[in-house]
């Protein structure tokens, strides 16, 4: 590797690529605009304004007596087997957090589960298809911040028409 400082010789001889007035002005303006957009998104905006949405991952509060929800997907395949199907993009084209992100849409329109089944078929054409799906919620109940038992809720079902 080259030792850059050794080559430049005496102090004070290093060239500086100065910036003109206009070059400074637009840079200051761009940084200010970016900062204002980010601040605006965080205070008033929401996720769809990415990259200027609020930095809201893990920003929600879970009370010490609330419940922890974690959804998963169960399926019956064409050969009759009932099993848990990985809820991630390589498996069904959507991840767990993505499904949770639009959970109300799944509740309103269970056909969206059919979209996951269709994705599974497209991504794994050689495997048995998913003909019936159950979107379930593994609920961990908290008491004073401690695990106080689990239950399993059924959220949405879909069956291939």
């Amino acid at each position, binding site marked *: *590797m080259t030792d850059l400082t050794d080559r430049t010789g005496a102090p004070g001889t290093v060239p500086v*690529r100065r*910036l003109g007035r206009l070059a400074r002005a637009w840079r200051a303006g761009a940084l200010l605009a970016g900062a204002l957009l980010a601040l605006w998104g965080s205070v008033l905006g929401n996720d769809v304004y990415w990259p200027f*949405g*609020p930095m809201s991952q893990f920003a929600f509060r*879970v009370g010490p007596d609330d419940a922890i929800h974690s959804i998963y997907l169960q399926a019956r395949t064409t050969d009759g087997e009932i099993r848990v199907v990985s809820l991630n993009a390589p498996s069904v084209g959507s991840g767990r957090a993505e499904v949770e992100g639009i959970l109300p849409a799944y509740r309103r329109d269970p056909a969206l589960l059919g979209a996951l089944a269709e994705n599974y078929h497209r*991504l794994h054409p050689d495997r048995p298809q998913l003909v019936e799906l159950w979107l379930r919620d593994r609920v961990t109940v*908290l008491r004073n911040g401690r695990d106080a038992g689990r239950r399993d809720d059924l959220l949405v079902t879909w069956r291939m028409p």
Partner: protein
Amino acid sequence: VSRAAAWLYPEVPLARLALLRVAVYAFVVCDMFWVVDDVVPHARGVASLYRPLVLREWLHLPVPNPGYVLTVRAVVIVACVLAASGRAGRGPGRLAGFLVAAGFTDWVSIGMSYGKIDHDHFALIVAVWVLPTAGAARWWGPRVLSPAAGWALVCVQCGCVAIYFLSAVAKVRYGGWDWVTGSTFAWAMTRRGTGLGRALLEPPWVLVAAQIGLFSMELLTPAILFLRARWRYLAIAGLGAFHLITYLTLGIHFLPLVVCLLAFLPLERVLERPRFGRFGRSTGTGLTGQPPPGAGAAPSSASPASGAG
């Protein structure tokens, strides 16, 4: 005014910017395969799950299909190689840089358009857009100082700080001030904690203390922008440790942000001849390119100790 200008346009060695480009563009390529790695399966899937961001709708970016996303990725990879090489001319280099910026923004925005939005890419998106603005930069050859490079680094630094600080803002907005006393970390550890992470669930005050620590740290990060070199490096090391712990307990690596933290470091020093004992005596020149107190009119001496060689 001059103090503000010195902060906004610090004269930093172009070699530092050139090396940050290498790191960022190399990471962008890896990112498309191992971080935002769900774009291709999304594009192969059913379009009814597509929930486009406002950005995609405004720019009329297409509903992703496999041909489109694979083309975008190929273009970004080629542009990354060109932009990182430091050998493309001024014009082509800039063009390649902005191609990376546009293509990578497109790619990541597709990843965020299926119901889950992550905020770990904010600084990296800032980086790909500002890095081309500094023009040609090489990590070899004679030393040149550039306020344009300095501004680009300041932008990336602000992008990093924004992620931390605005995370704290979001916690107050969504969780309220009592977010810190809640069980959000317990929620995270229960859902996706590693063995180490789950071990922290008991007793509950451990994670509450961690929440207080994280929230305080996030609120304090803007100070890093105004710290002098050595304290700055210490703060960056602290953030690095935080990300390491997050990875070990939750499996969340936040690498797109970690790579941007390099913008705080005097990267060009990796090119200097290693000399025992030098690091400890270095002064505040690393980040600003300004001379240390008493170094006379020597804006050049980013590493004053090595001038004698």
